[in-house]
C-alpha cells in the first residue's frame, strides 16, 4: 500500500447558479416534473428522489409557469404519460421525455399563459353498434394574459382548441377544474374568481375575495378538492374555501403573511397545503368537531354550526425564498411534499401525513451528471452553463515534498506557485440550453451540445503571462446536425482520439478526431431498442423493456478499449472500441444505475445504483469481479442510507485498488483489496425495509460520527465563503488515498474549517478499513484526479454563495427588532 498524500485543488470558482423552480407536477407514474426559471424541465423519480432527466429549456423562451402530466390519451397511448408545459411565451408544449425534444407546440392565442390545468374524465359513447365504448378524454384549460380561459382538448393528435370562455377584464392567473362537474374556476388579478362552464364556456358564477382598500387582490392559485370544494390563495395571504354548490365562501383563513403562491391538494379532501412569499408551508385540515351528546341539550345550542371547520394544523419553513410551487406525492410508497421556489432548492418533505413533524431533504442544486469535465493531462477544467462554457487552467503549487524534507501533515496548506485562471468563455449560439459538454484529456478539444446540435471546438491555450488570448475555434468540419443531432452525453476517449456522443435519438455515435476530418466510426443503436414494440408496462422496473430510452451515462476505459453506455431503462452495454462491436450487455440491476466508470486502468466497470449499491463488472471477462461478488452485498449501511446518490466514480493510478465514490456531500473510498467487514454491513433487504418505512433518511449508524459535521448544510458555508473563487491546493493524508484536508490559500494563519473536519474524517476512516467516508467538502460539483492520480480536483459550490446571489427574501418585521 502506497502511503502518500494527494494534493487537492479545492475550487470554488465555478459560479454555477441554479435557476428557480417555477412549477412542480406530480404524475401518477411516480415522476415529478419540475420547471425551472431558465426553461429546463427536470424529471425526478419520486421513489428514489433522483433527478432522471432534464429537458433543456428553449433559449429565450420565457419562463415556464406550469407543467402537467397527462396520462394516456386515447387507446393506443393508454400507458404513455405525456408531459405538457405552458409558460409566458404563450405556447403549450408537449415534451418527449426520451428525446427531450418538444413534440408539439401550440400557441395559446391569448398571450402569456399564467396557469394550466388538465382534467381527465371518462366518456362513454355509444357507437353504431349500440355498444358503449369508454374512452378517456383530457381537457386542458389555459389562463391567458388577455383575460380569457381557453379550453383545449388533448388527444393523440395533440392539443386542439375547444373553446374560449367569456372574457374578463383582467389577467387570468390561475385555473382549476372541478373534479366532477363541468366547471372550471379561474382566478384573476381583479380580486375575482370566475366559474365557467366547460361545455358552454359561459360564466356561471363570480366569487369575490377580500381586497385591501384601493388595491385589487390577485388570486394566484386555485385548486379543487375531490369533494368539490374550491380552494383559493390570494395576494393578501388568505386561503379561502368555497362551496361549489352554492358558490359561497365557507372559510377564509389569513394564514400567510404575504401572497399565497401555490396550493397542493391530494385525493384526501380534508388536507390542503399552501405556501407563498412568506416561505412558510402551511397545512390546513378539515376537522369535524361534532360531539355526540344528548339531543335535548344540543337542541338548545347550535353545535353543528362550528363542528366542521378548516383549521391550520401545521406550519413549517423549508425555504429561504419565496415558495413558488408545491406538489403532493401521495401514491403509496412516496407520501411526500415537494416544494420549490426562488431559492432553486428542490426540497422533499417526507412522510407528509405527519406534516409538522416531517423531515425535509434538500436536494443538490446541480444535476446528477456533472456539469464539469476535466482535461487530466492538460490541467484544464470545463464547466457548462446554460448558454456558455468556461474553461479554467488549474493552478500549480510548490512541490513541497522535496523542499520541506518530508510529507506534510494532512491539512497543510501548500504555497501557490500559480493561481488558476480562466482561459476561455465560449458562448454558444444555441437553440436550447446546453445539454452536454466534454473536454479532451489533452485539452485540445471541447465538445458542446444543445438539444439539436453537437459542436466541436479546438482550443489553443495561450501560455501564462502571454498577451495572446486563448483561441477557441469551432471546427466547421464536424458533422452537421443532420448527421449528428444533439447529445445527451459526451465523452472523449482518454487518448483524445475519438469522441463518443450519446445522441438525443438514443444512438451512440463514435466519431474519430483526426486532422483529416471527423468520420463517424460507428452508430450504436442498442438503446433505441426495438422500435414500435415498446410497451412500457412498468416504469419503475424496466425488466424486459425493449423500447427506446435516453442514454444517460457513458464511460470509456483508460486504455480506450472499452466503452460502456447506459440508459434510463437501466440497460448497460459494453462495446469494444477496437472492433467497434457490441461486446456484452451488463446484467440488469434492480435499481436504476446512477453512474459508472472504468477504474484502475482495467476493464473493471464500477456501477453505482440509486440505492447506493456498488457493483464491479469486468468487461473483459463478462462477469462481476471477484470483489463485487463477495462484497457488493456488504456495502455498509452508512453509505446505503445516504439520501444523496453517487455522482461519480474515480480511481487513481497512484493508489491501485481503491475507488472513490463521490457525491454532493460525501466521498466514500472503497478499498477493493480488502474485504468489507461483515459487521459493517447490512443486508439489502433490511435496508430496503427501512427505506420504505421512513424514507432514505440518514441512518443512526454508530460509525456515523460525521453527523456532527455539516454534510451539505449551511454551516459549512460560513467558513467556506471567504475563499470564494479561489483555487486551493492541499496535501492530504494518504492512508485512504482521499485528500482529506484543505487549506485555502488566501488564508494563511487561520485554522480553517477544513482542518477541523479532517480530524473527524480521519476518525471515520479508521473505523472501517475497507470503506471510509468523509465529509470534508461542501456541496461538491465535481471530483476527479489529474493525470497520474497525483493530484485531485474538487469543485465545490457553497450554498450560501448561491443564496447570496439571490434577491433578498421576504422581509417581515419582527417583534423586538
Amino acid at each position, binding site marked *: 500500500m502506497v502511503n502518500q498524500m494527494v494534493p487537492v485543488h479545492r475550487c470554488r470558482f465555478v459560479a454555477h447558479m441554479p435557476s428557480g423552480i417555477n412549477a412542480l407536477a406530480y404524475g401518477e407514474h411516480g415522476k415529478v416534473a419540475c420547471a425551472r426559471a431558465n426553461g429546463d424541465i427536470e424529471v425526478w423519480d419520486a421513489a428514489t428522489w433522483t433527478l432522471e432527466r432534464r429537458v433543456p429549456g428553449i433559449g429565450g423562451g420565457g419562463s415556464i409557469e406550469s407543467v402537467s402530466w397527462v396520462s394516456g390519451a386515447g387507446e393506443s397511448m393508454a400507458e404513455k404519460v405525456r408531459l405538457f408545459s405552458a409558460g409566458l411565451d404563450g405556447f403549450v408544449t408537449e415534451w418527449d421525455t426520451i428525446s427531450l425534444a418538444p413534440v408539439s407546440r401550440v400557441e395559446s392565442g391569448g398571450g402569456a399563459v399564467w396557469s394550466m390545468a388538465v382534467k381527465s374524465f371518462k366518456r362513454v359513447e355509444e357507437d353504431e353498434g349500440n355498444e358503449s365504448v369508454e374512452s378517456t378524454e383530457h381537457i386542458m384549460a389555459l389562463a391567458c394574459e388577455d383575460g380569457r380561459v381557453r379550453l383545449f382538448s388533448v388527444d393523440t393528435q395533440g392539443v386542439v382548441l375547444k373553446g374560449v370562455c367569456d372574457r374578463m377584464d383582467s389577467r387570468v392567473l390561475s385555473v382549476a377544474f372541478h373534479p366532477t362537474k363541468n366547471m372550471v374556476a379561474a382566478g384573476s388579478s381583479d380580486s375575482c374568481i370566475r366559474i365557467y362552464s366547460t361545455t358552454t364556456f359561459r360564466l356561471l358564477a363570480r366569487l369575490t375575495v377580500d381586497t385591501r382598500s384601493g388595491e385589487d387582490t390577485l388570486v394566484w392559485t386555485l385548486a379543487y378538492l375531490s369533494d368539490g370544494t374550491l380552494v383559493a390563495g390570494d395576494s393578501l395571504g388568505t386561503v379561502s374555501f368555497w362551496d361549489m354548490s352554492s358558490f359561497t365562501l365557507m372559510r377564509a*383563513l389569513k394564514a400567510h403573511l404575504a401572497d399565497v403562491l401555490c396550493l397542493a391538494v391530494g385525493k384526501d379532501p380534508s388536507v390542503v397545503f399552501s405556501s407563498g412569499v412568506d416561505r412558510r408551508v402551511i397545512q390546513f385540515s378539515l376537522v369535524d368537531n361534532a360531539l355526540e351528546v344528548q339531543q335535548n341539550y344540543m337542541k338548545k345550542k347550535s353545535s353543528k354550526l362550528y363542528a366542521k371547520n378548516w383549521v391550520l394544523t401545521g406550519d413549517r419553513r423549508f425555504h429561504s425564498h419565496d415558495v413558488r410551487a408545491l406538489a403532493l406525492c401521495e401514491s403509496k410508497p412516496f407520501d411526500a411534499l415537494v416544494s420549490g421556489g426562488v431559492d432553486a432548492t428542490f426540497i422533499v418533505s417526507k412522510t407528509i401525513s405527519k406534516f*409538522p413533524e416531517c423531515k425535509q431533504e434538500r436536494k443538490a442544486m446541480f444535476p446528477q451528471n456533472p456539469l464539469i469535465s476535466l482535461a487530466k493531462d492538460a490541467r484544464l477544467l470545463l464547466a457548462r452553463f446554460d448558454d456558455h462554457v468556461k474553461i479554467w487552467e488549474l493552478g500549480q503549487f510548490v512541490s513541497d515534498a522535496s523542499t520541506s524534507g518530508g510529507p506534510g501533515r494532512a491539512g497543510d496548506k501548500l504555497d501557490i506557485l500559480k493561481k488558476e485562471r480562466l482561459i476561455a468563455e465560449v458562448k454558444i449560439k444555441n437553440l436550447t440550453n446546453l445539454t452536454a459538454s466534454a473536454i479532451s484529456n489533452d485539452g485540445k478539444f471541447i465538445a458542446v451540445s444543445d438539444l439539436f446540435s453537437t459542436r466541436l471546438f479546438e482550443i489553443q491555450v495561450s501560455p501564462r503571462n502571454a498577451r495572446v488570448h486563448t483561441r477557441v475555434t469551432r471546427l466547421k468540419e464536424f458533422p452537421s446536425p443532420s448527421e449528428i443531432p444533439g447529445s445527451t452525453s459526451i465523452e472523449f476517449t482518454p487518448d483524445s482520439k475519438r469522441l463518443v456522443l450519446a445522441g438525443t435519438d438514443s444512438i451512440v455515435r463514435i466519431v474519430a478526431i483526426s486532422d483529416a476530418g471527423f468520420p463517424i466510426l460507428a452508430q450504436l443503436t442498442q438503446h433505441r431498442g426495438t422500435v414500435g414494440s415498446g410497451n412500457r408496462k412498468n416504469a419503475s422496473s424496466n425488466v424486459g423493456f425493449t423500447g427506446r430510452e435516453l442514454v444517460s451515462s457513458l464511460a470509456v476505459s483508460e486504455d480506450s478499449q472499452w466503452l460502456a453506455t447506459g440508459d434510463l431503462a437501466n440497460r448497460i452495454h459494453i462495446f469494444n472500441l477496437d472492433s467497434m462491436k457490441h461486446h456484452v450487455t451488463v446484467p440488469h440491476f434492480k435499481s436504476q444505475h446512477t453512474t459508472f466508470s472504468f477504474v484502475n486502468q482495467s476493464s473493471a466497470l464500477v456501477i453505482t445504483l440509486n440505492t447506493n449499491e456498488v457493483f464491479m463488472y469486468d468487461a473483459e471477462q463478462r462477469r462481476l469481479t471477484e470483489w463485487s461478488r463477495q462484497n457488493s452485498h456488504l456495502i455498509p449501511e452508512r453509505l446505503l442510507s445516504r439520501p444523496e446518490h453517487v455522482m461519480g466514480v474515480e480511481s487513481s493510478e497512484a493508489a491501485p485498488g481503491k475507488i472513490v465514490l463521490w457525491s454532493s456531500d460525501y466521498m466514500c473510498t472503497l478499498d477493493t483489496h480488502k474485504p468489507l467487514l461483515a459487521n459493517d454491513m447490512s443486508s439489502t433487504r433490511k435496508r430496503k425495509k427501512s427505506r420504505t418505512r421512513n424514507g432514505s433518511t440518514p441512518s443512526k449508524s454508530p460509525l456515523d460520527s460525521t453527523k456532527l459535521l455539516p454534510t451539505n448544510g449551511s454551516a459549512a458555508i460560513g467558513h467556506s465563503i471567504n475563499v470564494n473563487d479561489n483555487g486551493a491546493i492541499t496535501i492530504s493524508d494518504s492512508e485512504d488515498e482521499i485528500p482529506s484536508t484543505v487549506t485555502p490559500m488566501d488564508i494563511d494563519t487561520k485554522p480553517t474549517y477544513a482542518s477541523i473536519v479532517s480530524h473527524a474524517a480521519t476518525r471515520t476512516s479508521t473505523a472501517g478499513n475497507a470503506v471510509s467516508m468523509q465529509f470534508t467538502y461542501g456541496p461538491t460539483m465535481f471530483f476527479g484526479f489529474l493525470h497520474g492520480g497525483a493530484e485531485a480536483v474538487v469543485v465545490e459550490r457553497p450554498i450560501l454563495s448561491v443564496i447570496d446571489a439571490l434577491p433578498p427574501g421576504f422581509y417581515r418585521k419582527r417583534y423586538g427588532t
Partner: protein
Amino acid sequence: MPRSTKAGTKETEPCTSSTVLCGGVPSSLRVVFVGGGKLFCAATASTVNVMSVENGMRVHALVGHGGEITGMVAHPSNEFLIYSASLDSTVKLWDVSDGSLIKTWTFKEPVTLIASDPSTPEAFYLAFTSVADTSNSTPAASTTPKKKDSRATVEKFLLKLLETEDDEHSKLRYPRPLEIIFSNRMPFKALHASAGLVAVCTDQKIWVKGAGIDDEPKRLNLPNKQYATPPKIMTLACHPTTALVSAGLSSGEILMFHNSLHEYSLTPSIQSHHQTALQILHWHANPVTALSFSNDGTTLFSGGLESVIVLWQVETLKRRFIPRIGNGSPLLSLGVSPDDRFVGVVCGDASVRIVGVADLAVKTSVVGLKSKGKRVLNGNALVKDPRSGMMVVAGSSGCLQFYDVWGDVNVMEVEAVAQNRIVGSTGGSGEDSVVGEDALAAVKLVAFEREGKQSRWMATLDERAGMTVGGEPEVSLKFWMWDDVNQVYSVYTRVTSPHDGEVTSMHFVALPNEETGKKTTVLITTSLDARFKMWELAAVDSSARDVEPNWVQRSQGFYRDAPIYDAATSADASMLAIAAGSVISLWDPATNIMCATLCHPHSEEHVLKVAFSGSESDVPCLIGITASRCYVWNLLTGSVWWSVDLGGVGNGLSVDSETGRFVVSAMVHDQKDVGAEDSGVELDGTSSSKKKTKKVLAQKLGTPNTRILEFHPSSPLPTWIHVAPGKVHGLSYAPSEHAPSLRAKHTSARVLIMSSTFEIEVVGAVTPKGTVPSTEISSKQAAVTAATPSQSLFSGIYGAEAFQDPTATIQKAAESAKRDSTLQSAGILGSEMNQRLSFMDTASHLMLAPVKLALPFFDAILKKRDSEQESLDRTAWDLSASYESANGGADQMDEDTVVQGNEKREHISTEATFKDVEGLEFLGDVFKGMMARKDSGSANGGAMQAKLLTITKSTPVPPSTPTANGVQGKKPSGTPSSASASAKKSGKPSAKKKSA
C-alpha cells in the same frame, strides 16, 4: 365587612379572636358570572366574593369553607346558584341572591378541581388527590402530595339538589361516584368539561374522554418539537359545544386539539377529518396562564404574562387585543359571562377586572389588597394614613396602596417609583417574575404627617435595584404633598441617597415654633449609618415668590456611631427618642439637644423599635423592643419600668394613641416557646386553657409562629396574647371610628395584623356576649390607675401599677400565668412586686439602678437643705451637669446641680460626645454587686454615693448624677411637658446643632 372568623383557639379558650378582614393570596380561579350576568364571583382563599359587574361593589361574601377554594361552577340552569369546591373536602352550593348556603356535600378527600357537565345537569367532575400512605390526611398535607404515594383521580358525581327518599345516595355519608374517569400519579392541574367531553391535564399530559360511560380516556399528544426545555401545560379550556380542546403552554403556544376524541392516524385517508388535528396558535411570548372560550364558541380568550387579552376568532384565527389589562401583571384566569358580554380577568396584582368584549374596554375593576410576596414595607406592612384612616400597604412593584380594610375596598394607589412595566424583562416566568419585579423597585418606608385629617405630607423611601453602576440600589426619599383639588399625592421633593446606609425608619413630627406659634413639620429619618437626619421645608424666601420651598436637610445627629434602628417622638413633639444601638437617646427635636439616654441591661441587644406610649393621661413612658425583650421605660424616672421576655424575636410594635396600649409581635421559634418538659404534644384532654395553648403551640412546631401580645404600659402582664401562624408582616391599631362595627360582633379587637397569608386580620380579646367589651374595662382601669397615684416611696420607681390592690394584681398574675408559660417570669415579677419589702429580691436588672434609689431615699430621710421651692426647681430641672462641674467631685456636684438647675438649660456643652459612658446600667452593675454583699443601701447611703463617684471618676468621661426625686412629693406629671422635662434631668445635653 368581615369575611371570616377563625375558630382556631377560640372554641376552648375565649381569649382572642382573629377575624379576616381582607387581603389574602387571591385565588386565580376563573371568575364565574351569576345572577343573569349582573354579578360575578371571585374567590379569595376560603371566601367567595359575590360582586356587582356594574360597579364592583361586593354584594355578598360566601363564608364557610374551611380550606382554600379550588373551584367554582355556576349552576347550569339556575343563574343564582353557584357551587364551590374546597380543600376542606366539601362542595357547597350557595345562593348568591342572599348569600346563603344551600347545601354541602362532603367527600372523603380534598377536592382539588371541579367542572360541571353542562349537558347533564347536576353532573360534576371532581378531582381528588389522595395520599395513600400516611394517616395524616389533613388538607395541608394533601395539597403537597408526595410523588410516590399520591394518587390523583377525576370522578364523576351526581350532586342532586333535591334527593328523594328512596334515593340510595341520600343514605350515604359520602356521595358515591358514578364513575372514575381518570387516574394518575401526579396531581391534576386543570380540569374542564364541555357538553360531551371532559379534559384534564397535568404538567405534561392531557387526557380527554367523551361523556359516554363506555368512552375510553384518550391522551392527546403534544407536538413533537425540539424544545430546550419541554414546555409545561399551564391551563386548559374546552370548546362549549364541539370536541375542541385547547391548552396553554408555558412556551406561549396555545394548542388546539380539534376533533380531540378521535385517534391520530398515520396515513392520510379519506376519513382524515375524523382524526385529531393539532393546531398551534402562537402569539404569546410568555406562558399562557388564562384561556377560555366564549359560550357561543366563536372566540377564544387567552392571556398570560403580557397583561394582554387576546381574542382569537376560532374560525379564522383573527386576533383582537385588549392590552395593558393588569397594569403589567400576569393574567391568571379568564371567565366569560353567559351572554359573552364580559370577560372577568383575575390579574396577578390581586385585582379582578371585568372587560367588555364589545368595546374591548375595562368596565369594572375590583382591586384587592395587593400585599403579596416580598411586597412588605420595611418594618411594618400596615401603616395608617391619618388623613383618610386607610391602611397603606406596599402594592405592586413600587406602588403604595391605600386600602380600606373595613370595607375591603381599594381606595387609591400611588406609584411611588415610576417605571416602565415591561413584561418579561426580569427574565422570570409565572410567580418568579413577581419576585423579580419586586426586586426592581420597592417602597421601603412610608411616613405620614400626623395632623389627623389635615395631614398634607407623605414621605416615601424607595429602592430601585440595578439602576446604578456597581449594582447598588438607587435609593430616593420622596416628599409628597396631598393635592386637595385633584385628590392625589404628588411628588414635591425628591432626595437621592438620603443616607449612606440603609434607612431604617421615617417619622414626621410637627414642631411647635415658638416665634410664630405655628407648627413646623419635620421628617426624621434614621439609618444604619449611625446618623439620623431631620428634614424640613426650606424657609420661603420672600423675594422669590414663585419658587416653591423644598424639603431640605435641617440637621443630622448621631450617638456614638451606633446604628440607629428607630426613632419616635412624643405626642407633643417635645422629645425625640433615637434607638441607637442598645441605647435610646432622648433629644429635643426643636433644639437638637440630647437630653438623656436610656439603657437596658442586655447591652448586646439593639433596640429595634421604639415608641412613646400613646395615651396622654398615662404615665409617660417609652416602649422599646429588642431582639428578645420588650422594655418600658418610665420617662419620669428614666429607668426601665418593666420588661418582658417575648420568647422570640420581637419584630413589631404599635401603639394605640387612644388607650395607650401597645401591641408587640414576636416570632416564636421552635423550641424556645415551649418548655422542654412540655415540648411533647399533650393530648390528654386537660381542659386547662394553658395546656390548650401549649397544644396549639406544639402542633405548630416546626413552623415559626408569631405571638402578638397587647400590653398596657402600666403592666407587664399582657391583656391578651394571640398566636398567629407564620410570620406576621405588620400590625397596627385600627382607627377607633371603626370600633362600633366591631363591637357588634362582641369583640374588642382593634389590632390589625397582616398575617403570613397576607390577609389583614383584626385581632383582639373576645368578650362574651352581653358583657362590656374588655377594651372599655381596661381603659377604665387605666384611667383609675392614672387617677390614683400611689404616694409611697417607691411608687415613682415601679409605677402606679405595682402599688395597686395586691389581691387584684395577684389575681391578674395568676391569670397571666395560665396564659403562657413563657411569661411566668413576668408573672412572678408582677406578683412579687406587691411584696414591697422584698423588692430587693427581684432580679437586679429589673430593678432600677441603685443610684436612683439612693437619692430619693436620702431625700426622704434627710432634712432638705433648701427650701421647698428650691427642691421643686431641682426636681423640675435636672442637674444637667457640664463636664467641668462633674469633674469637680462629689461634694461639688451637688452644689453644681443646684446652681445649674437654676440656670436652666442654657448652659450647654457643645463638645458633648458620650463615647464611653456606659450609662445607668453600668452603675447598676456596681450596685448589684453591693446588694449581693447584703450591704444595707439605706444605711450606707453616703458611702454608696462616695463609691459611685469614685467609680465615675475613674471613667474617662464623668457620668450623670442621676436624680429620681422628681416624682416624689409631687403628683405624677400629667402633662407631657413636665414629663419630658423630668426625663431630661437624668440625661446630659449632648447635641450638635447643625443647620442644613
